[in-house]
């Protein structure tokens, strides 16, 4: 093993599951190696990539593991590497995600708090060019500035994002690590922690930059996985969720917005506008300030006001598309009982 992959002191191992990430894996590893608090070990799991992801990772001086066969999911790849982790903390970072230089240093204190099993950071798209990336940029700015800090205050962030989260290794192993039963292994693990009485923290100062889908083809794969993953997790955890006060309301509200409100949006609002009063069309615009205010607040701090304003319309398109995917997922998973089992990479 190369000396560069080991750095004593932090008690942290970073694992990077990667499948055909040749275009981005070097940037990811370099950003981890350049941290103000470097991890003790970096493990890249080359999940039988058909490109040279493994060779590129090896050239950066990190440990590269290759399972006997493709594991079929990110969760599978991470579980394969978990046996090799001997540090008290383990971090999962996607193969296309880079970190701000002090991200690990800022995130680690949160996971060391008593009762905390995992901590996650602020996520922002690395590239903001296409309409889909712009929509995601506003979505993340809004959610991580307004929703997530409130969830953290109430002690229940809905999800510890899989692209950049740190976990206590002993609790991770004790809770069965990353389950492969759903398409959203990070949400599954987060809710499992809550059911077991553990805490999860959100640290807005620790920032990561994943590459988001740049076209509809890749975005649709990701949205399908996420929406089915959400519904699958609700199905898996519903009786446990109902006993967790804040989380149960949050999940029910999200499910309501994604289903009943979607039907109102696509069907009832247009009918009301045609047959009752055209003012019902305002329903499509009424929450623009709710989105724009937190987005602009964060954008001012990041000196990205023009970029955020230019991206705002894309958010409403993305949300429209999100709603279609969630409706499809509810129909497939709950009504038709057709569970999505094939993990398709989003980009």
């Amino acid at each position, binding site marked *: 093993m190369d000396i560069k992959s080991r750095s004593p002191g932090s008690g942290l191992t970073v694992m990077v599951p990667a499948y055909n990430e040749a275009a981005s894996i070097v940037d990811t590893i370099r950003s981890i190696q350049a941290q103000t608090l470097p991890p003790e070990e970096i493990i890249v799991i080359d999940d039988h990539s058909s490109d040279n992801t493994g060779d590129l990772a090896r050239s950066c001086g990190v440990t590269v593991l290759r399972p006997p066969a493709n594991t079929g999911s990110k969760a599978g790849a991470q579980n394969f590497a978990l046996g090799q982790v001997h540090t008290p903390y383990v971090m999962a970072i996607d193969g296309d995600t880079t970190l701000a230089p002090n991200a690990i240093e800022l995130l680690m204190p949160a996971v060391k708090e008593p009762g905390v099993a995992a901590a996650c950071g602020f996520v922002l798209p690395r590239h903001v060019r296409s309409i889909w990336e712009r929509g995601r940029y506003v*979505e993340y700015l*809004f*959610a991580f*500035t*307004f*929703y997530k*800090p*409130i969830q*953290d*205050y*109430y002690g229940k962030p809905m999800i510890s994002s899989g692209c950049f989260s740190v976990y206590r290794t002993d609790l991770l192993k004790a809770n069965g690590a990353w389950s492969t039963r759903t398409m959203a292994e990070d949400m599954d693990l987060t809710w499992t922690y809550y059911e077991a009485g553990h805490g999860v923290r959100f640290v807005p100062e620790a920032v990561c930059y994943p590459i988001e889908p740049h076209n509809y083809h890749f975005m649709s794969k990701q*949205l399908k996985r*996420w*929406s089915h993953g*959400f519904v699958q997790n609700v199905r898996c955890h519903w*009786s446990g969720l*109902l*006993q*967790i*006060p804040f989380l*149960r*309301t*949050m999940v*029910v*509200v*999200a499910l*309501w*917005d*994604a289903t009943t*409100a*979607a039907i*109102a*949006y696509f069907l*009832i*609002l247009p009918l009301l506008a045609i047959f009752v*009063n*055209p*003012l*019902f069309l*305002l*329903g*499509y*615009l*009424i*929450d*623009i*300030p*709710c989105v*724009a*205010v*937190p987005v602009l*607040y964060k954008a001012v701090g990041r000196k990205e006001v023009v970029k955020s304003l230019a991206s705002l319309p894309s958010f*409403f398109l993305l*949300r429209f598309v*999100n*709603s279609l*995917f*969630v409706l499809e997922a509810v129909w497939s998973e709950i009504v038709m009982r057709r569970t999505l089992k094939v993990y398709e990479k989003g980009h």
Partner: protein
Amino acid sequence: MIAGLPGTGIGGIFYLVIAIAMPIRELFHKAYNCSYRSRWGVIALTLGLVVAIFASLWAEVALVSAACLWLQGVLQTDLHLANAGLSEKLSAAGAPLFACMAASAAFITLAVLYAVTRILGYYYARRAKRRSQAARPVFIPDQRLYARSSEPWRAYVERQRVLE
């Protein structure tokens, strides 16, 4: 991913309500000496955002009302024959009325969902407790020994169960 929908969704109102509840909750924490200074920073920032959101919503409604008034004037003067019905519908009072109706509907929906999840949560918590109690070994206290005890029966049984 956010799939909440404009106007019809309740996610926005839910977060606004619980954001407003944050300082009240923190004051309770303070009363029980478990309040942290760092949490007040988050509360202040969130409340600032909430105030800005309400201000911008008010501005939006005022803007839409003004636009309706202008449109009503245009329709009456230029297109009054063809759009007489539409002109009546686009009254200046319509926008605030619609906003109030949408907000009321969202609040009622939110309250109903909250109540339903709370009741279901209570039911499942009780069921889980009953199941865990049923899984415990049956303990039959000695009635003859209790005859010599002066404590209430329930307290006696619990104490004996712990001793077991």
